[in-house]
């Protein structure tokens, strides 16, 4: 269990760093990060499902310049961990997924807040460096690596903490209070997340006046289903 949590913590740090600070090779995208989170915790299929639901939700949150953005990748990874733990402890798949998806939204806001704070801390360190009479290349490197470390810490703290507190304790307890008959009324929430993501993707390309291409895509999709 501790080994599993350690692996989750390290992976969470990597996800947080990949989002902006290091590489940006997109292993932090929900489609990848949730799958791997699920694999670490022993249920890659549930991780993949969470990734599919959340992949497109923040796709138009562009980290352009100084724009504030939600930490969707951290939120999604936390959601995958919460969903897996919650399902393992409650044995009810629908509410585990639905509540995890909703929690992903809240955690992404918290993640975004912490990233903003981290950027202020980096700014203060930059100010101190500028007035340092003994400024050197090594000090610039130290400041830079500190920034990367903060980014790592955001992931390593947020995700495992929420996974344990919410996935192990809070959600299973909440789900145990809910009658099983409620599950069928929660199920459409998953479809809503999928629909919102799909619409966001379409909207990104309609900005380029490509409606007719989307229509061709519809037709291609339908053709595939007919042939299949």
């Amino acid at each position, binding site marked *: 269990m501790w080994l599993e949590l350690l692996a989750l913590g390290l992976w969470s740090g990597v996800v947080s760093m990949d989002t*902006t600070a*290091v*590489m940006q*090779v*997109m*292993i932090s*995208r929900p489609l*990848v990060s949730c799958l791997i989170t699920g694999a670490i915790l022993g249920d890659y299929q549930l991780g*993949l499902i969470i*990734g*599919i639901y959340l*992949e*497109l*939700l923040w796709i*138009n949150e*562009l980290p*352009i*310049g*100084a724009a504030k953005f939600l930490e969707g990748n951290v939120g999604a990874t936390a959601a995958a961990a919460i969903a897996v733990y919650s399902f393992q402890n409650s044995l009810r798949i629908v509410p585990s997924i639905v509540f995890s998806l909703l929690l992903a*939204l809240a955690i992404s806001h918290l993640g975004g807040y912490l990233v903003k704070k981290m950027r*202020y801390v*980096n*700014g203060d*360190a*930059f*100010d101190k*460096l*500028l007035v340092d009479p003994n*400024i*050197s*290349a090594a000090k*610039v490197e130290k*400041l*830079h690596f500190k920034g990367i470390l903060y980014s790592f810490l955001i992931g390593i703290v947020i995700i495992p903490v929420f996974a344990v507190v919410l996935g192990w304790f809070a959600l299973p307890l909440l789900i145990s209070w809910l009658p099983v008959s409620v599950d069928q*009324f929660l199920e*459409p*929430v*998953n*479809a*809503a997340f*999928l*629909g*919102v993501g*799909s*619409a*966001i*993707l*379409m909207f*990104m*390309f309609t*900005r*380029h006046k*490509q409606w007719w291409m*989307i229509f*061709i*895509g*519809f037709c*291609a*999709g339908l053709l595939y*289903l007919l042939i299949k």
Partner: protein
Amino acid sequence: MNRRLKTVDLFKMLFRCFLIQGSWNFKVLIGTGFCFCALPITRRLSETTEEQKEFLYEHLTFFNAHPYFASWCLGAVAKLEEEAAADNWESKQIISQFKKTLTGPLGSIGDRIFWNGVKPLASGIGLILALLIGWYAFIVFLVLYNIPHFYFRIKGLFIGYKNGFDIVTIISEKPYRRFIVFLSILGAIVAGIYAVLACKWSYDQNHYLAVAFAVSVLTTLVFLDLNKPVWMSLVFSVIFSIVVKIIFFFTV
């Protein structure tokens, strides 16, 4: 003394480019990161501590560009710093001015190619494959995304270093216009295919989920068109989807 950068310095800078956003801050955005990436230049070219300090103050300034395209500027700056050291320029003000000039174009091209093109396209293809073949999809997603990512980062540094000031004539959206149009057309087709497959995936789980999916798509498109935030469309989509379920529950 021959004050020239070595190939190893360029590779050190290339490696550092992948960390350029590590100390992102609101004061100089990725200015600190740019200076961090440029440190191999000063380590090779500066002969005294004072020279190194001068270099640091010169580059610890505001800089913003798309992170994948910052290497273009970095390569060009390496070339200019090399020329400045070799020819003993009196003032390097022109290098700072040059960096400022590149900020806009490098941000604009990168945002259009990656944040509005490659990223949503690779995500869409990854999701389609995830629905069709399962977890293998993530490999395709990462490969699709990272081929152009690495290409632009690596190519940019070396082209920048080769061209110096002349990089300005190379950096414009014009050469990439066709690529950007191609990405948007392909992205739109992928978005259409994904919508159909996601609807079918929902239908396979339970037929009323396909209706909930369609309602959510329409609700979100309306909200986005009205410039409303995503969370708002999500709240309404969730409410409408549950209403759909209730209607099905009492009628079917």
